């Protein structure tokens, strides 16, 4: 056997999964498995109680409501890209996700697992930050920026991710992976303009994703006045507070510069 021994639970409903979460000792959730099983093979200090979510059908739906789109936490990255609502309203997501990892990983990894993994290179976290997504847990709803600032929650199951249907008018995205395109992200910056709001989010390499700006087209005015340098200085100052590694800071600032130029050209 490649894997160490553990107790595996396969609930059929969210309620059943939550009951297991509350009753088991140090439970660990297995979503797509691409992070958890990799670490499980390497680590000696792992939970003995694993709860798999693959049999919970209600977590795999994508629904379009009046003002938002709701994505079940167990929707795989590939199914997300192939969904008609996403193709129509969030073609940007398709384009970005198709650059993440490999086809096999995209067929297995889930959006919820990616966001909740707490791993610094989780790409969906900063994408959802730029989209100002709301996370719906069994017992509460919370904005993704608040969730990422919280200590890692282990006891609650993420049900769905809600994204507002505000039309995305412009976007720019730059990602620098470690070795090649399929490798984990070292740094990335995403700029999204929806209506009169511009949101800039970044993946900070060894630190978790952060949102930097939410301005009412302030960015456009500064870009028109050729104030790119000033914008980079503002970004760098904020970045200095959260990323102490000079090498990673340089990578992220370069992502910002590149995204800014793409954004300005559109």
């Amino acid at each position, binding site marked *: *056997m*490649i*894997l*160490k*021994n*553990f*107790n*595996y639970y*396969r609930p059929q409903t969210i309620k059943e999964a939550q009951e297991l979460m509350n009753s088991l000792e140090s439970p660990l959730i*297995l979503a797509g*498995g*691409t992070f958890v*099983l*990799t670490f499980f*093979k390497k680590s000696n200090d792992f939970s003995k109680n*694993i709860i*798999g979510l*693959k*049999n919970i059908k209600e977590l795999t739906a994508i629904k379009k409501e009046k003002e938002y789109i709701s994505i079940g936490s167990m929707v795989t990255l*590939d199914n997300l890209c192939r969904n008609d609502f996403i193709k129509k309203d969030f073609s940007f997501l398709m384009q970005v996700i*198709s650059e993440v*990892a*490999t*086809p*096999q*990983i995209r*067929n*297995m990894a889930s959006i919820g697992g990616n966001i909740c993994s707490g791993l610094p290179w989780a790409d969906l976290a900063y994408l959802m930050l730029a989209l100002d997504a709301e996370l719906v847990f069994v017992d509460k709803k919370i904005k993704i920026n608040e969730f990422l600032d919280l200590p890692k929650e282990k006891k609650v199951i993420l049900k769905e991710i809600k994204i507002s249907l505000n039309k995305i008018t412009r976007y720019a995205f730059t990602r620098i992976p470690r070795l090649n*395109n*399929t490798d984990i992200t070292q740094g990335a910056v995403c700029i999204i303009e929806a209506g009169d709001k511009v949101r800039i989010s970044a993946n900070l390499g060894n630190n978790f994703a952060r949102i930097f700006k939410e301005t009412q087209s302030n960015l456009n005015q500064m870009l028109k006045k050729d104030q790119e340098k000033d914008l980079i200085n503002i970004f760098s100052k904020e970045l200095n507070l959260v990323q102490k590694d000079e090498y990673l800071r340089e990578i992220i600032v370069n992502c910002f510069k590149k995204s800014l130029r793409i954004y300005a050209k559109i």
Partner: protein
Amino acid sequence: MQKYNIEIKVNGKNYELEVNSNTLLVEVIRDQLLLNGTKNACNNGECGSCTVIMNAKSVLSCLILAADCNGAEITTIEGLSNDLNKLHPIQEAFVEKGAIQCGFCTPGMILSAKYLLDTNPDPSEEEIKIGMSGNLCRCTGYVKIIEAVKEASRKIKK
């Protein structure tokens, strides 16, 4: 040790199996069903040599618990061609274009190519590179593999 009973269909044949909670799909395929075409190399989801097609999607069998495969339909390299005496067009293209050296990565490569061509029958060179990006080859340098996928696309369209 927890045991689970699963029913899976592999290469068109139904199996009822008993697996442990920690049994991986690659272990079922290789050790229980003795289908050794599927390789287990990095065991970490990075090399793609354990790729199989499960429910019409290419997946890494080293990162899937067998207990989660109940009801799944799986195709391994052994089941790609329906005819025992005839290779699948993708296999033919790999042979014709010399896209094989040691052959260790080839089953995974071919199944990734199958998934790519099933979802995009006429891929561009760039799309082939992206579609095959989950499979590593340490011998060929990829040029012939890309040529083989282009050739397979032509053969399948005919």
